[in-house]
């Protein structure tokens, strides 16, 4: 088995070297170490209980040439509630978590090899929409825990890239294996899975699916299928995802509309974004594992205002319908995305 593994590894690396694309067009882009990320401050009221959540999510990016990238993403999320829930002084703590600490080898169009701790590519949310400065509604979908346990990250290797691309469509894939790890801040479960999607360029429509096999404790399967659609000539964004696992199944449907191209006056209203989302979840086998244990429906409506492309005010109202109780959920705050160079520019 070891000999076979070594042979395949050599073959794989040879493929890398042969497939290097040396055609680099001229541009003025710099490849220097960068610290990027987001800062946010969210005021949340959930069922009448207020909470404050300051956050900072730095992402360190260190390139080595144009084919190797070291990246690390850590979340520092504060959670402060009143001592007696609805009154009294605010108390709480700051939670930190290492979301990713990985080395990327951008070998060619078809192969990007990732080693280390990475965000699990499952569905639309975890890898693509979860950054603080990206998601339009601050609370993640109910089903975001499916396929991403224990903390949204895996420790191991991942292969990803573009399988095929032409002017009409593009097919992308990810496949990964994560090992069990109990080291503080690097917790991960033994699991294997993948994601594949096709993007139809002219329709601006993406359809994809994800699969994960959990390989420890109860060996369970999780699946997701999703659609992302941005109709041409509008700033409408429609996203849909259905997830299913041993603990339950559910879907979310989200639409976001930016008024950027709408002929409304005064002009500053064009910086607004209106968001709506509905979701339903049904538990199976008692639910749990970060999923509700009762039937849950939820609707959210959000209004965001982009002061600049990197700074926005956010607000949202949600109503969650659980079997025993219904609650209102309010969010208000701001997010700011930053990109700071860490090194003097080095000309290519």
């Amino acid at each position: 088995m070891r000999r076979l593994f070594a042979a395949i590894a050599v073959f794989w690396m040879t493929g890398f070297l042969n497939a290097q694309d040396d055609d680099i067009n001229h541009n003025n882009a710099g490849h220097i170490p960068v610290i990027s990320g987001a800062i946010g401050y969210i005021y949340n009221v959930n069922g009448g209980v207020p909470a404050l959540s300051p956050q900072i999510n730095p992402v360190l990016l260190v390139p080595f040439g144009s084919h190797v990238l070291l990246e690390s993403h850590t979340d520092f999320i504060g959670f402060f509630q009143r001592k007696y829930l609805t009154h009294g002084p605010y108390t709480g703590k700051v939670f930190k978590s290492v979301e990713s600490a990985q080395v990327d080898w951008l070998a060619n169009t078809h192969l990007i090899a990732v080693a280390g701790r990475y965000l699990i590519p499952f569905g639309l949310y975890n890898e693509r929409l979860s950054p603080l400065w990206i998601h339009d509604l601050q609370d993640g979908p109910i089903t975001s825990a499916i396929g991403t346990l224990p903390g949204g990250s895996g420790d191991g290797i991942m292969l990803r890239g573009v399988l095929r691309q032409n002017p009409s469509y593009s097919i992308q894939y990810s496949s990964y294996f994560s090992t069990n790890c109990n080291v503080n801040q690097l917790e991960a479960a033994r699991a294997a899975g993948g994601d594949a999607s096709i993007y139809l360029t002219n329709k601006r429509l993406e359809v994809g699916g994800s699969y994960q096999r959990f390989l420890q404790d109860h060996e369970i399967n999780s699946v997701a299928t999703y659609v992302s659609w941005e109709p041409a000539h509008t700033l409408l964004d429609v996203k849909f995802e259905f997830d299913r696992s041993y603990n339950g199944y559910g879907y979310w449907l989200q639409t976001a509309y930016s008024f950027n191209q709408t002929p409304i006056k005064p002009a500053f209203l064009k910086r607004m974004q209106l968001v709506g989302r509905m979701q339903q979840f049904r538990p199976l086998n008692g639910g749990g594992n970060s999923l509700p244990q009762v039937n849950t429906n939820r609707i959210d409506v959000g209004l965001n205002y982009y002061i600049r492309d990197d700074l926005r005010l956010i607000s949202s109202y949600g109503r969650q319908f659980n079997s025993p109780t219904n609650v209102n959920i309010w969010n208000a705050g701001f997010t700011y995305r930053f990109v700071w160079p860490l090194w003097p520019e080095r000309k290519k």
Partner: protein
Amino acid sequence: MKHRILCALLVTLLSLGSIAALAFEVQSSPNPDGQKQANSGFDAQKAGERIFMANCSRCHLPPTSITPRTTGTIIMHMRVRARLSRRDEQLLLKYMAP
């Protein structure tokens, strides 16, 4: 037994990666028209803008505040995250840091 299963899984992953790299390399070479389009700087910028609208704007707004000196690193990061092709990366660089 578990060790063998893990090794088998790893080998399968690596094999799939190898096959993908070699089997599809020729098929997805830029078509002659696309190559011709991207030869001039202006066309390359327009192509980069189209790629931005097709890929990046599915998740976020155009990042107008990013300076050219950091663009190369950011685009590398986004190439990994968004599974962009090498050619897409080059055209995006042309668009964002001409």
